[in-house]
């Protein structure tokens, strides 16, 4: 069985297949019957160790639109909160005959571990500060819809790169698809080995903004200042926040993205978040189509058409 654990698992052709499939699904989502019979009789488990209504609902809707049976298994109020190990939970899901497991977990690599314990396909819905491949897919999908292409697109990713699974997945996927990525953050929020990543790095948002087609703002938690990643939220916002003045210096046609949840007034100002150039709500809508596509390609056939060859 194959899995989607990292955005880096996808070849260029596979990534394009996911995007094309999602685009076709989105085109016909306006029809009267929104459900496809494709995953009838297949069971998808949403295994969520972190609260994330947004992502869980998106996956749930996607699986249901494909006619899969969906089981939500959240950490609260289940055996997980009674100290059951991830492995025992995995074996339980295995015994229930789960065909696919969507896992969100606070620890990097938990999706990899799970893939070793279950026969079903494992779909990483965010593991610690590691990766969130479907978020990157929906981000890239949104860019392609808005800009008409991904190849050669200049994308700035701004914020807490160090702790961001969204940034990691996006760097990998955008690189695969030929975009030029620049990461922008204070040096404290940049991984030490970032010069080895397939992207450019800058500490100066004002220098990067006018040269960007896409500006992706990442959430920055104010608590980070307790660990001295930056002195104050105000200083962070002043140097790296996307406010009205900076917004005015964007190129014509440039878009502003945010994976949510946003901290308005911190990394993004309210008027920027609500502007016509902001794709925040489109990203949510596109998330369902992209996840339908991924579920279809992982579970629709005899074996997966995309992703990581597990054991």
């Amino acid at each position, binding site marked *: 069985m194959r899995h989607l654990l990292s955005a880096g698992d996808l070849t260029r052709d596979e990534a394009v297949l996911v995007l094309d499939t999602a685009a076709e699904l989105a085109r016909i989502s306006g029809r009267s019957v929104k459900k496809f019979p494709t995953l009838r009789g297949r069971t998808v488990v949403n295994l969520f160790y972190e609260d994330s209504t947004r992502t869980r609902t998106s996956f749930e809707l996607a699986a249901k639109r494909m006619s899969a049976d969906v089981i939500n298994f959240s950490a609260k109020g289940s055996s997980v909160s009674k100290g059951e*190990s*991830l*492995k025992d939970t995995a074996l339980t899901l295995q015994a229930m005959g789960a065909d696919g497991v969507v896992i969100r*977990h*606070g*620890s*990097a*690599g*938990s999706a*990899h*571990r799970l893939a070793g314990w279950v026969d079903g396909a494992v779909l990483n819905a965010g*593991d*610690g*500060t*590691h*990766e969130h491949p479907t978020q990157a897919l929906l981000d890239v999908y949104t860019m392609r819809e808005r800009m008409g292409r991904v190849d050669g697109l200049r994308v700035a990713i701004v914020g807490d790169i160090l702790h961001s*699974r969204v940034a*990691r997945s996006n760097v990998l996927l955008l690189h695969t698809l030929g975009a030029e990525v620049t990461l922008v953050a204070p040096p404290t929020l940049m*991984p*030490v*080995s*970032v010069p*080895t*990543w397939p992207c450019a790095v800058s500490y100066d948002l004002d220098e990067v903004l006018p040269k960007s087609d896409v500006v992706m703002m990442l959430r920055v938690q104010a608590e980070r200042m307790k660990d001295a990643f930056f002195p104050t939220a105000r200083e962070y916002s002043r140097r790296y926040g996307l406010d009205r003045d900076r917004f005015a210096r964007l190129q014509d046609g440039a878009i502003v993205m945010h994976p949510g949840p946003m901290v308005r007034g911190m990394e993004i100002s309210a008027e920027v978040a609500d502007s016509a150039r902001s794709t925040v709500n489109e990203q949510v809508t596109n998330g369902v189509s992209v996840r339908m596509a991924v579920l279809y390609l992982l579970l629709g056939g005899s074996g997966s058409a995309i992703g990581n060859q597990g054991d």
Partner: protein
Amino acid sequence: MHKTLEAESAYLIRGARIAGGDPGDILIRDGVIADIGTGLTADDAEPVDAEGLIALPGLVDLHTHLREPGREDAETVASGARAAAMGGYTAVHAMANTDPVADTAGVVEQVWRLGRESGHCDVQPVGAVTRGLDGRHLAELGAMADSVARVRVFSDDGMCVSDALLMRRALEYVKAFDGVVAQHAQEPRLTEGAQMNEGVVSDRLGLTGWPAVAEEAIIARDCLLTEHVGSRLHVCHVSTKGSVQILRWAKGRGCDVTAEVTPHHLLLTDELAETYDPIYKVNPPLRTAEDVHALREGLADGTIDCVATDHAPHPIEAKEAEWANAAMGMVGLETALSVVQHTMVDTGMLDWAGVADRMSIAPARIGRLTGHGRPIAVGEPANVTLYDAGAKRDIDPAAMASKSRNTPYQGMRVPGRVVATFLRGAPTVLKGKIQ
């Protein structure tokens, strides 16, 4: 199982190459080496065919976690001693981070007695530097030194004595009984939540990084402190290239510092974390190939004095978890000599006399053990390990004597096999089987 400490019979080891030298016979009687030569005969002695085997002085480990008292599900003194014997060891230093902590004369004497009762290996307790490893209050170091266990090595291993003033005091205080402080060099603030070596791999995997500087800064500080107070420092499980460079510099200045390296740091690198299998999660973390190379060079040129296993048994469930929630550590007693052969001898960096020094003589000297780490010579205690360097074996965790299975070498083919271990003339291992 209770064993008498002195051998009741004599053994004639035939054709062994002492520390890799020319073949000869070794006659063991009454717990000591009675004769060495060629063509020896002794009617009362049981012959041991050692054709082609290497005879080493019984190995000494400065760094072993035996888990008793407290975590007897992972290891006991008795099971750990058997694992040690199977690895060719005749003495191990049991680390203090048990539950309760070995920070009083009572606890160290208990561990010492359990070792004597096991009969498979001498167990020399290490005393904690601070009470309950709290890093703030000195434990009764003198009482442990004066106890029947005669503790000479003190360590908060697992925790770093990060308070510079407390470290200074500990270094000064142990001078009164020729003790040594074995420091676990890990600057705590730089390693909060750290999961693996900080670098390319940690950044890719999204696991919190453990920078080399967190180890190196403490080693540099402690070397300067040691020099200042004229004491003796031992650095546990050195893992980085920078640490080797600092130790070389400190020794050049005349600082009385010794250091150890683990077998796994001589072989494994952080790229193994790509599997997210916490069998590779260890403290200090696996580093890069460049570090591994520097550690081998340091061990070869004597900058690093000895090999210590940091044998750290854990129950299965502690490793069958997400990386961040899994325990740190690897078992190592039963694979150490093979890994040292593979990384140091087979690469031409160390000869067998060098192995005898790094794995027996030097650690015994650092730990001030009188009856161990002695040359194989007439009149010396008969602590002898017979090793077949030409053998190959596949590591099977289930076949290990340790109670735990957390070896990173599972399924690997490694060179060499311990054929026999003699502790004061009594075989604890014979023909590769525990006695």
